């Protein structure tokens, strides 16, 4: 459906996208992840024909974005990051304008408009001025204009930013629903969102692709260890030694003292070990008391930070070296 091959885009001396390649097949919901300024938005602008890459080829629905730009634009719905709508128009007039510009035949326009108005919950705001809309409604209108021509491909740049939690849940559900039939690419900073919505994740950092995997696949990358936090009331050094020696435990460190004579410990163990059960047995047999026990699973955040931070360090080292030279 979408093919990006060795795409590079420079803004002056800054390389925004650096030799990026990936394919997206029909029906995939692709999460585009990365810190601010990583190149997500630039990539999306290239896919939607708003800007042209310096190098590489991009095809969308088998059409080249430069040679058959109009065909690509017909098949793509796009919500830009800042949701730049015409604030001087009324919501209904704006949707009529987009429907006309999207080449929807006159007879079908009313139907198309009422479909997106329903899907995006814009009903109460049709007569309002676009400039008067709250952030949430603006976002919904932005989404509505992207969906009005029922495109095969939706490209949404931070579709849920600025929404309140219940709106976020609604929009995510909508994206999931759309993803059943359509190809959706959406960018986000919110890692939770990726696991909630996407079937695949691309992580981009400093213009380069650093990961391309499923959300579960990414979590597995974080390693085979699990970390538990436990608060125990007992002689600190003895507890630390005993915990460290418990079967399945790789290491135990004392974090610090807590209220009521408790100390907090950090226990690292192999993934899949029933660590809670073992620690509880140990505490009971020693006659100590247990206050808290929680096990942290490696999160997407960990993976994300590991991937982007690692890259960032080497990158900045390189550039410093370059400056000196």
């Amino acid at each position: 459906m979408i093919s990006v091959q060795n795409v590079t885009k420079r803004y002056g001396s800054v390389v925004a996208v650096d030799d990026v390649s990936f394919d997206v097949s029909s029906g995939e919901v692709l999460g585009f992840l990365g810190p601010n300024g990583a190149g997500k938005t630039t990539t999306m602008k290239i896919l939607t024909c708003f800007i042209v890459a310096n190098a590489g080829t991009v095809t969308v629905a088998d059409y080249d974005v430069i040679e058959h730009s109009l065909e690509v634009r017909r098949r793509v719905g796009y919500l830009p990051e800042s949701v730049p709508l015409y604030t001087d128009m009324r919501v209904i007039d704006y949707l009529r304008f987009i429907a006309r510009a999207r080449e929807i035949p006159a007879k079908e326009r009313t139907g198309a408009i009422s479909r997106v108005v329903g899907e995006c919950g814009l009903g109460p705001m049709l007569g309002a001025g676009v400039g008067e809309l709250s952030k949430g409604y603006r976002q919904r209108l932005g989404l509505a204009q992207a969906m009005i021509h029922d495109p095969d491909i939706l490209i949404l740049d931070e579709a849920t930013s600025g929404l309140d939690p219940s709106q976020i849940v609604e929009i995510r559900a909508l994206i999931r629903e759309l993803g059943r039939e359509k190809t959706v690419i959406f960018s986000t900073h919110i890692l939770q969102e990726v696991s909630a919505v996407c079937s695949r994740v691309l992580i981009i950092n400093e213009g380069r692709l650093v990961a391309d995997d499923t959300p579960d696949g990414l979590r597995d990358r974080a390693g085979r260890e699990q970390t538990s936090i436990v608060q125990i009331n007992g002689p600190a050094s003895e507890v630390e030694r005993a915990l460290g020696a418990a079967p399945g435990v790789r290491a135990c460190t004392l974090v610090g003292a807590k209220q009521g004579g408790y100390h907090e410990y950090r226990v690292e163990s192999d993934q899949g070990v029933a660590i809670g059960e073992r620690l509880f047995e140990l505490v009971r047999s020693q006659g100590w008391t247990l206050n808290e026990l929680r096990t942290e699973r490696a999160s997407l955040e960990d993976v994300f930070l590991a991937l982007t931070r690692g890259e960032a360090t080497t990158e900045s080292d390189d550039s410093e070296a370059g400056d000196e030279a």
Partner: protein
Amino acid sequence: MRLRAIGTVLRREFGAYFDSPIAYVFLVAFVVIPNGLFLFVYGAQRQLSMREYFSLLPFVFLFFVPAITMRLWSEERRAGSIEILLTLPVRAGEAVLGKFLAAYAFLVVALAATLTIPISMTMFGSPDWGPIVGAYLGAILMGGVFLALGAYISSLSTNQIVAFIISVSLSFLLVLIGYHFVRAAAGRLWTFLADVLAYLSVKTHSDTIARGVVDTSDVIYYVSLIFLFLMLNVYAIQSRRYAG
């Protein structure tokens, strides 16, 4: 170029003029000033002629037209809405033409509002209609040049006021080079230059308009300048997609 795409942009832009109070303020000014001027001239000279009005028109256009065109592209770029516009299935050329024609339509509405002058003339006597009709046609053509120039300048800046000031300055230059003293100075440098400047100036061609004559050479002049500025406008929009 597809008429439907051009028409869609035209409709949206034309509507946008009437969503802002500035348009109404300008329409009123555009109608009140010439009408007052006409009464003044009539009072002084008892002449049923619009010649004074049309000889001043380049200067009225100088300020009025850049005010119409200043937001066409600069506002679109400032607000970022150009990103939606140019990712719709609308070609850059179609968007440029649609916006230009919307501004043109607004100018024609403003000019039509001054038809109160010739109509009120009929109350004082019988004016000579030939020159008046000719002058209106000429004014529409001349307005097109200022519009195309203003629209092009608007595509170069994200600030409406900057676009306005540069458009006024360049439009003024386009009128100024037709004045005798500029041509004389240029002629001392290079004789041929005086003729070139005279041909390039809107003033030379608007003088014939004020007399109510629309010459083929004037039409060719206006149409080629409009075409030139529209092409530059398309180029400015397209080149931004490649910019880095």
